[in-house]
């Protein structure tokens, strides 16, 4: 028997080692627990819990942003409690209906939050002091359709574009492209060299293809806000030529993606790019903070290249994060105090610099130090801003446009659906339930 146990020992050792690896993958839990122990409690202090999907930002909230708030308001403690991004909506829904959600709610833009407001889970904030610091465009994502009532304080937007590895560009003697033709020449040059993957993106998680692919380059085709509004009004259709053209351009990326991109996940692409194995990363500005940490090479950024013969450029400057108040909170006064603080210039400055790549939407003048973030921000001056076309109103029915675009964009890149067919399918989805498109 003891002999047998002796033989078992290595196997058990392996299992323990594996188990240990499994746990150490997620260091956040430790930080979280440690912090609540250290700061929680205290006589007369009110603790507010903040729900969020930004688990990547945990350290920044706890080390930079919240301490600044705690200093001004020693009687209030805010703890940041993030959930994984793709589970956030479902988890938050369950927590809100079960009455266990935090006091402060990080708001997804448009319909997800609008529904929470209509169901009475989010408190109205139209009268909140400091809201006047935000323009209509910034507020639109967290207001009722007529714009009369607001329910979340706009916190940040993200801008789409392309990040590139400056060392690889120098090595191959190429420069960032302005037009689509130059973009394709550039990709061909990198592909011909063969050392690096020209474009780093995978389709396994689907949303990358839609968000960093279609919504990144698309606004140049459908003329930004103009096209987005036209889809909502029903004056343009998703199977019009500009949408087919956007899908066609997306499909042309397929030959420049790494081998086996069909099963590459988002973390795979992030790692591949930061390890220096690929040249260009179709990105959102939210990558900046993480990539600055992980990549040991210099990075640059360029805006989506414009199609031939087009003078004006359009960027996706997507209103992405807001923060609101749980209507059922036990501490509405304190929660309001925190929300008012998030409308200030101080918060905007802290946030923009702690999280380069998330751009404040208030009218305060904010200096961003990070050069990459500056580059992204500079496009606002020369290009027209728009938001992702599937977010407002068009994802209210079944099938919802956003999820459909994930599937279709991934399939266009995988080569299992033709661009023309993808546009037709997206339109068929809208035809099914969206009245202005049915006429």
């Amino acid at each position, binding site marked *: 028997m003891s002999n*047998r146990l002796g*033989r*078992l020992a290595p*196997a058990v050792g392996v*299992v323990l080692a*594996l188990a240990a690896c*499994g746990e150490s993958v997620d260091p956040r839990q430790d930080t979280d627990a440690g912090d609540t122990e250290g700061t929680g409690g205290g006589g007369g202090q009110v603790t507010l819990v903040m729900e969020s999907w930004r688990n990547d930002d945990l350290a920044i909230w706890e080390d930079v942003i919240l301490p600044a708030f705690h200093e001004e308001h020693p009687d209030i403690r805010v703890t940041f409690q993030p959930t994984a991004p*793709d589970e956030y*909506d*479902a988890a938050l*829904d*369950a927590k809100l209906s079960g009455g266990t959600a935090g006091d402060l709610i990080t708001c997804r833009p448009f*319909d*997800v939050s609008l*529904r929470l407001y209509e169901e009475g889970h989010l408190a109205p904030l139209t009268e909140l002091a400091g809201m006047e610091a935000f323009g209509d465009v910034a507020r639109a994502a967290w207001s009722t359709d007529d714009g009369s009532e607001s329910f979340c304080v706009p916190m940040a937007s993200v801008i789409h574009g392309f990040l590139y590895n400056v060392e690889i560009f120098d090595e191959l003697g190429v420069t960032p492209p302005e037009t689509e033709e130059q973009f394709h020449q550039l990709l061909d040059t990198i592909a011909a060299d063969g050392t690096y993957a020209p474009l780093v993106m*995978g*389709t*396994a*998680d*689907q*949303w990358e293809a839609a968000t960093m692919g279609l919504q990144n380059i698309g606004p140049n085709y459908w003329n930004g806000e103009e096209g987005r509004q036209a889809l909502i009004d029903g004056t343009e259709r998703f199977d019009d030529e500009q949408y087919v053209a956007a899908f066609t351009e997306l499909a042309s990326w397929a030959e420049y993606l*790494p*081998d*086996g*991109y*069909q*099963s*590459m*996940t988002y973390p*795979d692409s992030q790692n*591949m790019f930061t390890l220096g194995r690929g040249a260009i990363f179709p990105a959102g500005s939210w990558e900046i903070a993480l990539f600055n940490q992980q990549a040991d090479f210099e990075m640059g950024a360029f805006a989506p290249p414009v199609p031939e013969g087009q003078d004006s450029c359009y960027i996706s400057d997507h209103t992405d994060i807001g923060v609101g108040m749980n209507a059922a909170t036990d501490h509405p006064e304190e929660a309001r105090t925190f929300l008012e603080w998030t409308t200030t210039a101080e918060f905007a400055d802290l946030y923009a610099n702690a999280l380069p790549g998330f751009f404040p939407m208030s009218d305060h003048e904010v200096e961003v130090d990070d050069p990459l973030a500056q580059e992204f921000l500079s496009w606002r001056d020369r290009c027209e801003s728009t938001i992702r076309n*599937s*977010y407002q109103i068009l*994802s209210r029915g*079944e*099938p*919802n*446009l*956003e*999820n459909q675009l*994930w*599937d279709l964009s*991934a*399939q266009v890149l*995988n080569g*299992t659906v033709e661009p023309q067919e993808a546009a037709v399918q997206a339109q068929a989805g809208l035809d*099914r339930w969206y009245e202005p498109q049915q006429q």
Partner: protein
Amino acid sequence: MTPLRTTGPPDGIGVEAATASGTAASAEPAAKPRRRFPTHLVVFIAPAAAIYTVFMVYPLLDSLRLSMFAPRDGLQTFVGLDNFVRLLTDDLLSDAFWNAVWNNLVFFAVHFVVQNPIGLLLAALLATPTLRGRGTYRTLLFLPTTLSVVIVGFIWQLIISPVWGFVDTPLLGQSSTALVTLALMSVWQYVGIPMILFYAVLISIPDELTEAATVDGAGAWTTFWRVKFPLILPTVGIVSVVTYVANMNAFDLIYTVKGALAGPDFASDIMGTLFFRTFFGFQLQQGSSTMGATVATMMFLLILAGVLLYFYGWQRRVESYQL
């Protein structure tokens, strides 16, 4: 593992044994007058029954109830079987539903034809009398079963990743291969369960039987198929039905590896993931607890149908031998 508990031959046997010994003890002194009410039975059954009712029966019945309601003007209103009619006739919903049912059956079929034969083979090899290091093999083969599905998914994803791993084909990224690849990952993890069940039966076969067969001139092959296999047959049935229940309820591996959208193009979408999306919603898709309950009820009915088929079509006919 849960199905083992719910199908419950061990429990059943336990109860029967308790009954038998209980009645034997109390019946003997006063055999003829009316039997006393078997209070001890109630005492023994109550804890399990209470827990089972609170955590299994009640939620099940409540989800059946929920599937007959739908939100109307902000209130949940009774709509009878409307949800089921919609699920089966609405082109969007029914496409997704039948796609998930079909994928689920494929997922089960892969387990049935790969996991169980391999489990039987491994059990037969383990039961070979001359095998050395039996304990080590048994432990190693059973180990994956005890691993977290997240670890299994993560490790296999890396191994077969074209970027970091050994395989150039994006097995998990193609509609044609994704589902079968996932099923095989799950087979790798759970092959220990049928193996250990078959092994338990194999080692309980008395040596006299195999020796007699040898004396009669049967080789190892003939002995296995003519003597041992008929004795294993009842367990094959149990293992199959357990595999069926576990696979029709599967969710975790696919969610871990492919996410709730179970791509590419829903090629690996099974009822568990469809239920998750329907009930909780996904990204901008809004969840519907009532339609989710409807999908859950259909899952329940499909599993129930399979289990009934097994009990009436197989369990009653198969011969079991008293050893």
